[in-house]
């Protein structure tokens, strides 16, 4: 792993966030509480995965049982499938508040056995998320620390007290993807209504925080917005990206068009309907053609042909249905998607009772 500049040590996760696989089975983990992304060699033990599907009922209850708690104490933050073994990785928060603990769990597709991925002594690299408070932003929220090893000791007269000073401004990673030798990171600021997509070359280099790409989208040829990207997926061999925004349009842009410091305008190719949030996206191949699946909060699972995206002129008139043709799959409650080899897409699905299950969707039948 020396080619990726990983060094052995302890990955101290403070929070569980989005995860995605990069080259050579390296897993990227976003830790929003620490404003850091880790690249970890997870040393997946599995043999190469086959072309079989993988389904697991009550994955939240199973992971909860393994971690010694109920399903309501489990929050599955993200899901990724190891590109070779097809083992399923879940970024999980166990418990709430002070007792909350981030855990990386691995589910073997061979037998459904759940395990936690040890992070005590693993090859890893880390990069600070560049949207940490700026040089002029000295605002700190000063509180009494919850633990003795936090904060700094201050002397007031004859009293000594530990004070914890933490930044007020933070950025929250909502999605990550590895494409074309770089990690792409979308985030939401807790202050500005920002539109930054960060690109950090991998392997990480000391002092390189990556570039910040400002992307606008135009709706109906009349309105231009710089809204934050909520979820995105590279396709076309990593040359293109389809992004969905907090305000739901699907926007296409080519990575080559994104140059540092310049304003880039993406092409709005579809709108996903009112009062709806895109949750996750994945690309897959069916009969030699590339397609995208978009999981939505209100409008089910949508399938879109990439050739339709490529030929879609920018939306210029408000109309319904809007933009590229899409096929709505009768699958509700899908929150996360990941490729499970070439034959299946793995979906994390919530049922009406809120329990969560892993389901394999056959790409030939989608």
């Amino acid at each position, binding site marked *: 792993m020396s080619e990726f500049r990983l060094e052995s040590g302890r990955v101290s996760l403070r929070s569980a966030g989005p995860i995605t696989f990069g080259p050579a089975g390296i897993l990227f983990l976003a830790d929003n509480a620490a404003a850091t992304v880790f690249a970890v060699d997870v040393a997946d033990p599995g043999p190469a995965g086959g072309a079989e599907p993988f389904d697991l009922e009550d994955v939240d209850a199973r992971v909860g049982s393994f971690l*010694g708690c109920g399903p309501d104490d489990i929050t599955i933050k993200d899901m990724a499938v190891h590109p070779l073994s097809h083992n399923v990785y879940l970024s999980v928060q*166990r418990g709430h508040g002070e007792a909350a603990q981030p855990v990386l769990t691995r589910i073997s597709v061979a037998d459904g056995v759940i395990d936690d991925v040890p992070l005590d002594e693993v090859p890893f690299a880390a990069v600070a998320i560049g949207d940490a408070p700026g040089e002029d932003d000295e*605002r700190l*929220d000063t509180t009494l620390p919850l633990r003795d090893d936090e904060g700094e000791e201050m002397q007031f007269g004859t009293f000594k007290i530990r004070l914890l000073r933490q930044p*007020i401004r933070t950025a929250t990673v909502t999605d990550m993807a590895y494409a074309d030798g770089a990690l792409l990171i979308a985030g939401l600021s807790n202050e500005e209504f920002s539109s930054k997509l960060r690109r950090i070359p991998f392997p990480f280099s000391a002092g390189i925080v990556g570039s910040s790409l400002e992307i606008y989208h135009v709706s109906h040829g009349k309105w231009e*917005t710089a809204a934050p990207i909520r979820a995105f997926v590279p396709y076309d061999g990593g040359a293109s990206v389809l992004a969905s925004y907090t305000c*739901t349009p699907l926007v296409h842009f080519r990575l080559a068009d994104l140059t540092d410091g310049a304003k880039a305008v993406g092409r709005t190719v579809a709108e996903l309907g009112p009062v709806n949030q895109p949750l996750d996206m994945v690309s897959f191949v069916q009969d030699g053609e590339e397609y995208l699946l978009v999981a939505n909060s209100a409008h089910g699972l949508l399938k879109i042909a990439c050739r339709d995206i490529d030929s879609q002129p920018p939306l210029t008139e408000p109309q319904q249905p809007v933009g590229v043709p899409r096929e709505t799959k009768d699958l509700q409650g899908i929150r996360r998607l990941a490729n499970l080899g070439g034959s299946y897409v793995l979906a994390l699905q919530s049922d009406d009772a809120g329990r969560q299950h892993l389901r394999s969707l056959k790409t030939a039948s989608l």
Partner: protein
Amino acid sequence: MTEAIWSRGGGGDCIRLRGLPAGADVRVFPGTAVAAGSLPPMAGRLERDGADLCFVPRFAFLDGMSYTVTVEGTSAAVLVRPRPERPAATEVTGIRPAAAEVPVNLLRFYVWFSAPMSEGYAAGQVRLARDDGSIIAGALLPTEHELWDAARRRLTVLLDPARIKRGLPSHQEVGYPLRSGEPFRLVVGDGFRDAQGLPLRVSAERRYEVGGEERRHVDPVSWELAVPPAGTCEPLQVTFGRPLDHGLLARCLHVRGPGSELVDGTAQIGPGEQSWQLAPSRAWASTVHQLVVEPVLEDLAGNSVSRVFDRDLARPEDQSRPARPVIIVFRPG
């Protein structure tokens, strides 16, 4: 007969088991009803301690949780982890904006708490309500990732931007979440849990009147400055003419002295986020100073110094402005 008790061992909390033969198949499951064979046992290890066996969990026992011990596949004991009894003491210390009236295209709120909070409760406990108590549904952006500061004491709540941005189906079909002339309240329910898992001492709310649209750039050139006398520590006072974003105000305004050095002092955001002042720690010099305004400073509707929230491409005045700080010069008299 197996006896099982909470104990210490193996470097932490454990379940101590007495009266078991060596090599017994012992497993621990969270909960009281173990669906035999369907769920994996809790991760941990068994350690021999004299005549006892100790189950040491890999992940700490949770307060208030029940744990079932099985021996040879049969339920042998159920233990309940005690939950420390503490009175609810955490409360909401502030809701921003503090302005009495907000624009109909309001974009965000900030909620401050007196102690660190748990994540996962914002969607269920923060809501907008009309004066008759009915809930304004679909107004707030459902976020899987809640927006907190690092100390988990300030929560940022966004109104659904798709309903604010013109030209999108959400705006065209459903309209703004708010309505001009119809007051509403932001309500934080007492079911919001703090970091210790306790509810709030009391729920909190703030009521707002709703005005018209605000779609103009933030324009520092139009601000009014009350310039202090030189040789005093009286504050520089800046009045904006409309409320600005509380979170950004705290970091987007600075004063630089004649040598471009930052003027140190006490900054305060005025009532309703309509003004700002800086009282210097050393008396003003009678030379030219600069009020520096960062271009990301936004108003309540997400319009900033450099760009409007959504730009009407047909309106030249909506064009983006340089993303550089705006500098206003003044000289204490």
